[in-house]
């Protein structure tokens, strides 16, 4: 049979790769959701203009710094050791890094918000959390969402390589074929990853514009 060099030969494991890519995209989505959620909670105490207190403010800032300074791959190694080989470790590792990176951007967004509405809520007897929710969140929501969706694109790339250390997704497969010098398969997987990143970029760009357009 002369199949060598044909498309079927090149992509002969497309079914399992497609599944791995799907898993990778899911990892990125879950990690972005969890990370952005944690970032949202930490950004309010971390913002300098909301008077979170002399203990809470530096604590939140240092925590965010710690979370984004340590590379995802290092977190992934730790979590693989703690939770075993599999996507959970990858999701957690990316989520922690996302929380740190997004938290800083979120806090900066909050710091750039005018405090008129804040004074309005506080003067009416609203508590600190209530003022965050009603005076600040509505004003920063579009830019926060924009940052989170941008992060989703970045996280898809991260999720594709984090499998190198056994943290799930297509990275594991990629590592394997690189180790065995299967050049056709390396190129095939890389092509698929690039195509997936393209797709997600386009999708999230559309989503971002639609949601932000609707929120304006």
């Amino acid at each position, binding site marked *: 049979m002369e199949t060598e060099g044909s498309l079927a030969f090149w992509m002969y494991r497309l079914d399992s790769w497609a599944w791995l890519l799907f898993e990778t995209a899911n990892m990125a989505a879950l990690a972005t959701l969890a990370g952005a959620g944690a970032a949202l909670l930490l950004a309010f105490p971390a913002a300098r203009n909301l008077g979170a207190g002399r203990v809470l403010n530096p604590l939140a800032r240092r925590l965010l710094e710690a979370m984004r300074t340590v590379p995802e791959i290092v977190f992934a190694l730790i979590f693989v050791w703690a939770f075993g080989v599999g996507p959970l470790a990858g999701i957690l590792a990316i989520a922690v890094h996302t929380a740190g990176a997004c938290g800083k951007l979120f806090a900066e967004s909050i710091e750039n918000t005018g405090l*008129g*509405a804040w*004074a*309005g*809520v*506080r*003067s*009416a*007897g*609203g*508590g600190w*959390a*209530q003022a965050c*929710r*009603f*005076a600040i969140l*509505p*004003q920063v*929501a*579009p830019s926060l969402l*924009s940052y989170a969706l941008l992060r989703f694109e970045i996280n898809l790339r991260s999720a594709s390589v984090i499998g190198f250390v056994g943290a799930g997704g297509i990275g594991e497969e990629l590592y394997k074929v690189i180790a065995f010098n299967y050049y056709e398969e390396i190129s095939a997987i890389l092509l698929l990853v690039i195509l997936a990143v393209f797709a997600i970029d386009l999708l999230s760009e559309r989503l971002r514009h639609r949601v*932000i357009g609707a*929120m304006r």
Partner: protein
Amino acid sequence: MGLRQVAALEQDVAAWMGARGMLELRGLTRRFGATVAVDHVDLDVPAGQMVGIIGRSGAGKSTLLRMINRLETPSSGQILSGGRDVTALEGRGLREWRRDCAMVFQQFNLVQRLDVLTNVLIGRLAWQRGWRSLMVLVGARFTAEERAMALAALDRFGLAETALQRAETLSGGQQQRVALCRALLQQPRLVLADEPIASLDPRNAQLVMDALRDVNRHDGLTVLVNLHHLDTARQYCDRIVAMQAGRIVFDGTPAALTPERVRAVYGITEQEFAAEAEARRRAAEPAPVTLAVA
């Protein structure tokens, strides 16, 4: 409700309604570095009065009102209300005091991207307790009664049809009346209006002042309002307090504030005073709206 709680409640009410004034300021002072914004102010305001505080810019009017609401912390002196020391309050007690003395700002201080109804409902935040406060915090879920209250307040000032619009789509005069609705939803005893008409055109200024007077006359709320215009103060207030360089330099009825008194107090004629106020209004007018870039 136990007997003890009832007794405590009666004591509270007695304290409020009693001989003690609605608001007593004792030697209230606020310094910003070397400058003294408010300098040993003593003032007694009985319940139900509409007090106009006038003065040129920088006289300390705003700082005074912001201190009463505790948005600014006094450097020294005391704020008393019904015999209660407001200056010492913190936590829940402070929030309840702020709820009781609603504030209206020159720049309205509404949440621009929230709808008008929710902006008004912000006045209910300090009333939430227990699990209700969680419902409100997470889902902005106010009760049907509260939303009905908010709509009724909006309807009173002819704004009911704007309830679902974003605050940013309203004119300045409308926004200020929404801010007043928010204040009313707090069910306050006192309304502090910090230059409420300084950024409004004359027609809207009149609408807002009429609304404030209505709140004073019909709801029996004590109103303290900072003003730049002597004429407006004379027209609407029972009592005028004039400030200069952080001190009270006149305190009396509108009739007692004659042009001669104005001249004696401020060293300028009433016309000059009015021109200054007008210049400030023009300067305070919002700049043309620019679209934010995504």
